[in-house]
């Protein structure tokens, strides 16, 4: 044994202390089979785990498919068991350390916090697709929704109730790289480093064809099965088309059992379902998409109440109703997070809990009081502190909502009805500034930007694209556009770019909110109605501008003109002239760039509507990076032009346009025209 192995043993033994709860449950359930079955690379029954650990067998099943891992597994599990035994001695089997999330995992449909209709929808889909044996298409289900909305739990419950086997893909761990000398001494020709996508591929094939091995304790024998992919191989994030290929080729054609993908919503673009499963792919593969909503507060409260009542009487302090409400509020519809924070908050002997309770009680009391006094601000901050202390989920706003919050800028009444504004108020502005007087805002713009998880630059672009719809007076627009100009100016210098970002966003958002005099008062809301949001055109326009400039440079480099002269003088006039000494690509380019569509509405500027959950994905290129990236495109065309001119006469007779081999970059295909220079 090498040193490293010993080291690993120790480490893994230690590790098990941390991961104990998961195994502990396993041990207590099936004590007899634990060592033997764990040692063997074999499948486990679902029933022996009592449904709680449905995914337990999967870990072993993988080793069945890839026997290479088995030796390592054995070693690991032995030490694991040692750790477990120690643990069992020291701890009574009361399962007190079990996370409540695992302990109170829903077992029946009624226990799920998901809306009935959603469960029904998934159930129907499963029923339909399990029944039909040989289906050509439509056997892929895509479950989406925010994390903690109960996607996985719903599927687990349904699978159990419908008596379906669940085969899950888990990304294999490949942390050990064998050195070549080891390899050739043992199995020559065995592929040690198969890529994840290949493994995934094989998994799909086998899971499709073969049933799970019948193992000791396997009670229900069913050939109904569903493949679940929640852990998408990393390679596919980098290149989703790769996954589409796998699905198209291997799965859809030979599909025997339905495939379920579960993807959590996220604001970042790379792991987004729109990125992994674009609309056209969804249509092509007939993927059925069911989107889960965040858990509704009422459902959440029901679950929390159930847990709280079951927990009470033990060593933990029963959390009271105010506490539950607080937890429910803080979790933003994430049930997993809510249960975790509930457990954390009600853990015995935590001083935090005492604080929390008293704090929250105080808050509730304060809540009643605040309405009489104008302590609105104090209340808001107190609320924020309170929620943060419990460890709530980071609130996250989709771009659509974030934009709405800024542009619809809700304001509140500074005074309550019936209470006349008494003459002396410190907040009153002097008369000459009275046009700047606004009612207090309900939203905090900086918070909105932070929660939207976007760069200030991009957010400003979105605001700029959409703000005009919300203005009625041109005087207000002047002020707003001036603020936007200021905001852009603030981040112009790359030296201070990162520091100034937040300021820039503040200036832009607050500027736009303030400038809108039509929404200066709390009572003049509405009237505008729903306005669709659009994605900013600027990025596209800017890209196009640079592309066209580079293309112009590439196509007409023989004129030896400075770019400005070329773009503003030569090209437009070339469009007016009939000069035959040009190739098709050049003519197309001149037609495209040199002439304007006067009559018709600019067709290329079609607006792209921003929908509810669209992420703000658009790589915001730095202008310099950008111009360089595109300049390489331009260079390509230039290169081809030059290679042609060199193969030809090799020189330019005083800026004479020459026939060249040019690749047209306007259509995305290569038109290679060869001319003999004569």
């Amino acid at each position: 044994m090498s040193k490293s192995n010993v080291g690993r043993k120790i480490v893994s033994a230690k590790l098990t202390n941390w991961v104990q709860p998961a195994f502990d449950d396993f041990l207590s359930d099936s004590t007899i089979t634990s060592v033997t079955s764990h040692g063997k690379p074999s499948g486990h029954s679902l029933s022996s785990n009592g449904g709680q650990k449905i995914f337990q067998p999967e870990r072993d099943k993988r080793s069945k498919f890839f026997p290479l891992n088995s030796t390592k597994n054995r070693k690991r599990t032995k030490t694991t068991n040692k750790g477990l035994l120690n643990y069992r001695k020291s701890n009574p089997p009361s399962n007190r350390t079990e996370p409540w999330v695992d302990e109170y995992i829903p077992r029946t449909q009624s226990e799920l916090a998901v809306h009935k209709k959603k469960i029904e929808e998934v159930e129907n889909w499963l029923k339909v697709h399990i029944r039909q044996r040989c289906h050509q298409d439509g056997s892929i289900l895509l479950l989406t929704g925010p994390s903690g909305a109960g996607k996985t739990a719903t599927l687990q419950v349904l699978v159990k109730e419908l008596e379906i086997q669940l085969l899950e893909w888990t990304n294999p761990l490949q942390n050990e790289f064998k050195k070549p000398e080891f390899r050739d001494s043992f199995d020559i020709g065995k592929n040690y480093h198969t890529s994840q996508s290949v493994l995934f591929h094989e998994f799909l094939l086998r899971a499709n064809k073969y049933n799970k091995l019948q193992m000791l304790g396997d009670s229900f024998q069913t050939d109904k099965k569903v493949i679940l992919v929640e852990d998408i191989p990393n390679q596919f994030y980098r290149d989703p088309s790769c996954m589409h290929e796998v699905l198209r080729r291997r799965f859809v054609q030979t599909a025997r059992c339905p495939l379920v993908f579960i993807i959590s919503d996220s604001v970042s673009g790379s792991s987004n379902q729109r990125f992994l499963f674009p609309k056209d792919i969804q249509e092509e593969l007939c993927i059925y998409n069911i989107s889960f909503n965040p858990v509704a507060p009422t459902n959440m409260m029901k679950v929390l109440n159930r847990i709280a009542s079951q927990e009470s009487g033990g060593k933990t302090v029963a959390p009271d109703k105010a506490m539950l409400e607080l937890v429910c509020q803080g979790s933003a519809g994430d049930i997993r997070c809510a249960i975790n924070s509930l457990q954390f908050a009600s853990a015995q002997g935590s001083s935090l809990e005492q604080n929390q309770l008293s704090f929250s009680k105080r808050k509730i009391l304060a809540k009643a009081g605040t309405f009489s006094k104008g302590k609105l601000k104090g209340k808001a901050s107190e609320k924020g502190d309170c929620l943060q202390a419990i460890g709530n989920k980071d609130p996250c706003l989709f771009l659509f909502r974030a934009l709405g919050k800024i542009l619809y800028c809700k304001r509140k009444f500074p005074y309550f009805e019936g209470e006349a504004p008494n003459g002396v108020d410190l907040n009153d502005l002097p008369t000459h500034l009275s046009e700047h007087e606004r009612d207090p805002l309900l939203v905090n713009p900086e918070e909105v930007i932070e929660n939207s998880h976007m760069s200030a630059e991009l957010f400003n672009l979105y605001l700029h694209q959409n703000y005009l719809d919300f203005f009625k007076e041109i005087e207000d627009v002047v002020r707003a556009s001036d603020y936007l100009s200021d905001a852009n100016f603030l981040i112009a210098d790359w030296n201070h770019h990162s520091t100034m970002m937040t300021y820039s966003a503040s200036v832009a958002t607050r500027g736009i909110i303030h400038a809108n005099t039509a929404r200066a008062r709390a009572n003049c809301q509405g009237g505008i109605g729903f306005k669709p949001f659009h994605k900013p055109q600027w990025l596209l326009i800017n890209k196009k501008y640079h592309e066209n400039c580079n293309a112009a440079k590439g196509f007409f480099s023989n004129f030896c003109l400075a770019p400005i002269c070329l773009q503003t003088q030569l090209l437009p006039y070339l469009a007016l002239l009939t000069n035959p000494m040009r190739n098709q690509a050049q003519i197309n380019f001149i037609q495209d760039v040199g002439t304007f569509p006067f009559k018709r509405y600019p067709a290329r500027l079609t607006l792209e509507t921003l929908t509810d959950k669209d992420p703000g994905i658009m790589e915001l290129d730095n202008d310099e990076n950008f111009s360089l990236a595109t300049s390489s495109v331009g260079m390509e065309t230039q290169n081809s032009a030059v290679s042609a001119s060199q193969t030809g006469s090799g020189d330019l007779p005083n800026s004479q346009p020459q026939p060249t081999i040019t690749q047209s970059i306007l259509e995305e295909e290569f038109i290679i025209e060869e001319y003999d220079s004569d």
Partner: protein
Amino acid sequence: MSLWVDKYRPTALGKLDYHKDQAGQLRNLVQCGDFPHLLVYGPSGSGKKTRIMCLLRELYGAGIEKLRIEHQSITTPSKKKLEISTIASNYHLEVNASDAGNNDRVVIQELIKTVAQSQQLETSTQRDFKVVVLTEVDRLTKDAQHALRRTMEKYMSTCRLILCCNSTSKVISPIRSRCLAVRVPAPSIEEICHVLSGVCKKECLILPQELARKIAEQSNRNLRKALLMCEACRVQQYPFSVDQDIPETDWEVYLRETANAIVNQQTPQRLLEVRARLYELLTHCIPPEIIMKGLLSELLNNCDGQLKGEVSQMAAYYEHRLQLGSKAIYHLEAFVAKFMAIYKQFMEVGLEAMMF
């Protein structure tokens, strides 16, 4: 069939059509076979490049006309690859360093170094220096200009620089003082008329004097533009008639329509339409500075004398912003909005004055 602009471009100092005194001076300058660094400046379309090429021809003979386009790739200290295209003959090299954006300093240093370090082989038939022509020097960053200053001194023995720009105001004074400044003024209307009729004679066309004058006036004393216009006229209608329309470029017409749209109505909705039009201009490769300038001149034509001062001031303010900022549309739009507000207020006040 090449463009008239290229076809009838004079290639020798003796054949230049205007500024003949200056041509004589330039010939005297290179008579002895050597010359100082030059800084040639003047408005667009006045014949700077033509004069530079004539000068080089005087110096090196017809070999200068064998041009080729070369692509140089330069690696910056930060390991970034820059591609830049140059136009070169055996004796000279023409670079537009501002193509490289922020990395123009590296381009200047590397290119001039490589040119200057290679000695000419046959000094008997050739000059013992090469010439580097740098165009658009006024668009270089300050960094690059300072680098240029050092390079100029260092490689004086093997290399001469000819800098070409529109205005010297953006060229740092150390460079200005190291160069012999040659100003090429825009040709007068008469000179343009003369050139136009000369070209038409060579094309065997009859150009009426009035039309030539009209073209010259409309070209803004830009000879390149005048020749292009003249050729466009020829395409449009021949034989020429005195009162024929002189074709304008599409973007100018489009810009004028945009300005009219701004003057006609001042609402946020109109601003949205104007924004779409500005985008359209940008996608057609019209640089934002040119849009700003063109828009201003069109708007000034449309508004009352009292407003002109204020509008121009606003334009200057936002043009400055445009240069400093990174996204042109913010500033263009802010300018348009500002103009709308000023104009609207002025009209309302005027209307009230009329009522009472």
